[in-house]
């Protein structure tokens, strides 16, 4: 410290003196500044010493400080570096007025995702296990595995992330939920309803996980600005793996956000997802009601717009808060559609333009109690099917591509006796089926979190 002070003083002199020389070209001014800095430095040191004396005198009269408790020595066992483990257990009871077996989203190709109301009666939901830790000073890593009630284990996310890139960059690689939109990155246990909005179910089979890499940049501004780009193998709806090397697909996203005073905050975003699909198969029935497997090959481009607004009195969300969010998606697909790939194997051009949106709001009206309302709407448009316009087949051969405008209205109330428990009652009027029948769906859901206290994203 003693050796350091003169250097600091010299540096301070240099800082003050050099610009003065350059500006005024006046030696006298520089010398004066130098003297003043030295004087200021000595005054500061004298003041510091004086106050130290005063401090010591006062401490002698003040009450003694609390005795420091013995500091626990960090364990040296092999388990000391175990990653943080958190487990979420979920389950539900469902009661639906229509048979969940014939549920489908009218006008949208089935996408293979675990979508729809699920099974009736009691069902074990996905049990989610997350392990996370720093790898070294440069990387952190996380694994989230989901064990489905049907005894299947799936890798939901498994990725590394950089912690030390310069200039606001973060890179991620492995399997991760793509950064577009608002809900896509949110794990199922943190959803505000028991299921995803219809637009996420129809467009991404609930949510899109990317096997690939992501680069994100945060602007050095007080306004939150985030830009991100991703690419990968394309192997998640609406893309597929291709029989070739290289990357499939580009995802670009941007988010902007900030505060409105002490009580409210907001974030809006936009994204563009461009993917290739190669023999993206889906099950359908032909005009004779026989099951067939059809496939799409071509380009799929999706635009996403998202917005979130949160408000709490005094900014204190522990007592009451309001959250409003909405997202809009628009997709264009162009390419070829193959009919009955295993037998007839007919193919011709295909083009579709589809869109959908949801708007939802959750209000915590009492501590630990929340109520929510959500409205979903989709517009499948009318696809241009070459095999139909050429007269080879009829629209009756593609029942799942018949135009539809599914809607759904959902209400929910949940009770959260602690941060780690949630009981939810949800009721939905679902008009997603092509026959237009209303499916009245009742869900009673539980969510329990054990292990590490997880941190949640905005």
């Amino acid at each position, binding site marked *: 410290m003693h050796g350091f*002070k003169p250097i*600091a003083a010299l540096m*301070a002199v240099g*800082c003050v003196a050099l610009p003065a020389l350059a500006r005024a070209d006046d030696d006298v001014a520089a010398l004066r500044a130098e003297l003043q800095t030295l004087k200021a430095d000595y005054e*500061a*040191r004298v*003041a510091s*010493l004086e*106050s130290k004396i*005063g*401090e010591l005198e*006062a*401490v002698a009269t*003040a009450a003694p*400080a*609390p005795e*420091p*408790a013995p*500091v*626990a020595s960090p364990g040296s066992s092999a388990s000391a570096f175990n990653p943080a483990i958190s487990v979420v257990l979920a389950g539900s009871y469902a009661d639906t007025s229509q048979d969940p077996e014939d549920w489908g989203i009218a006008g949208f190709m089935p996408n293979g995702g675990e979508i729809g109301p699920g099974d009736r009666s009691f069902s074990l939901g996905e049990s989610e296990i997350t392990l996370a830790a*720093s790898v070294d000073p440069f990387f952190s890593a996380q694994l989230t595995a989901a064990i489905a009630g049907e005894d299947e284990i799936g890798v939901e996310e498994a990725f590394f*992330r950089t*912690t*030390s*890139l310069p*200039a*606001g*960059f*973060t890179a991620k690689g492995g399997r991760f939920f793509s950064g577009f939109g608002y809900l896509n990155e949110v794990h199922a246990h943190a959803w505000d309803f028991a299921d995803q909005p219809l637009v996420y179910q129809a467009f991404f089979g609930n949510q899109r996980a990317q096997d690939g890499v992501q680069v994100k*940049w*945060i*602007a*050095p*501004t*007080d306004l*939150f600005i985030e830009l991100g780009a991703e690419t990968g193998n394309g192997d998640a709806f609406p893309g597929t793996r291709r029989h070739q090397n290289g990357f499939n697909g580009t995802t670009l996203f941007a988010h*902007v*956000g900030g*505060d409105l005073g*002490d009580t409210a*905050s907001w*974030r809006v975003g936009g994204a563009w997802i461009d993917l290739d699909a190669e023999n993206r198969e889906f099950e359908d029935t032909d005009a004779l009601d026989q099951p067939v497997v059809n496939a799409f090959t071509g380009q799929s481009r999706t635009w996403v717009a998202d917005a979130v607004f*949160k408000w709490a009195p*005094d*900014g*204190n*969300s*522990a007592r009451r808060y309001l959250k409003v969010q909405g997202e809009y998606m628009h997709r264009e697909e162009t390419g070829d559609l193959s009919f009955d790939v295993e037998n007839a194997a007919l193919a011709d051009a295909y083009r579709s333009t589809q869109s959908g949106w949801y708007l939802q709001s959750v209000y915590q009206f009492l*501590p*630990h109690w929340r109520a929510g309302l959500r409205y979903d709407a989709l517009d499948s448009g009318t696809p241009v099917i070459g095999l139909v316009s050429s007269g080879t087949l009829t629209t009756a051969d593609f029942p799942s591509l018949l135009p539809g405008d599914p809607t759904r209205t959902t209400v929910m109330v949940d009770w959260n*006796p*602690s*941060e*780690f428990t949630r009981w939810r009652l949800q009721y939905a009027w679902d008009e997603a089926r092509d026959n237009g029948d209303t499916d009245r769906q009742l869900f009673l859901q539980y969510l329990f979190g054990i292990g590490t*206290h*997880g*941190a*949640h*994203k*905005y």
Partner: protein
Amino acid sequence: MKSFVRGALALLFLSTTLQAQAAVRILATTADWGALATELGGERVDVYTATTAMQDVHRVDAKPSLVARARTADLVVANGAELEVGWLPVLLQEAGNAHIQRGQPGYFEATLSLALLEVPSRLDRAMGDIHPLGNPHVQLDPRNIATVAKALTAKLAEIDPPGAAYYAARGADFGKRWTEAIGRWQAKAAPLKDLPVVIMHRDQAYLCHWLGMRELASIEPKPGVPPSAGYLGELVTKLAASPPRIILLNAYNDPKAAKWLSERVHAPAVVLPFSVGGSPGAKDLFGLFDDTIDKLLGAVK
């Protein structure tokens, strides 16, 4: 795309040149550590406080404005002891700022230099939302603030070496005024010694410990667990034999349960500022304790 990249680069360049001239940018998680950083850093620092006294710091969103501030921060001044466990890790992770990661010089935790009260001997969430490292609400014992001030002064000098002498002088000056103030507060608060009180949450424990007030019970049966009607009924019965003189409440707490109890046990519920900004009087750290002690003395008169 090209013009976008050029724009982004220009923005990047602009921001780095601006930052080179600006003060040390500090992101403090609570109003109290923000106020301390301002006391010690003076004109050399630009302090942004993530939360206000009206917020429950356990429950804060990792909102976009905070990620943006974390991105440009030179130093994060956190409370630590897992107080911010629900949101600070997300900020650090999302900010893309290597300087403020845990273990880096730009990350400071106040509780690291303190011995905490109520370190649980057994960890089980059946005991409520307990903090494994001990009670993190340390700021209501001013002796803790004096200890943290020394650590933070050293940290500021480490982050901003040209200002070392400046911080040392300010730190010494603050230490002197603070020690005098502690003596004044302790003398003034002498009548509060052994005063029987009921507290709301464990976050008033350090205040009680410092002033020697006697905690009879807390309104939350377990940390983070709201009281049920049955529990409050039992509390009234239990307190009938040895009634409290006052019930302590923080500015951000829901006053309902405390008011209900107050009427039944005939003890006033005193709303304390808890943090800088929690009352009109608590404008800075000195005001926080002046106001807290005045409110306590006013209630027992």
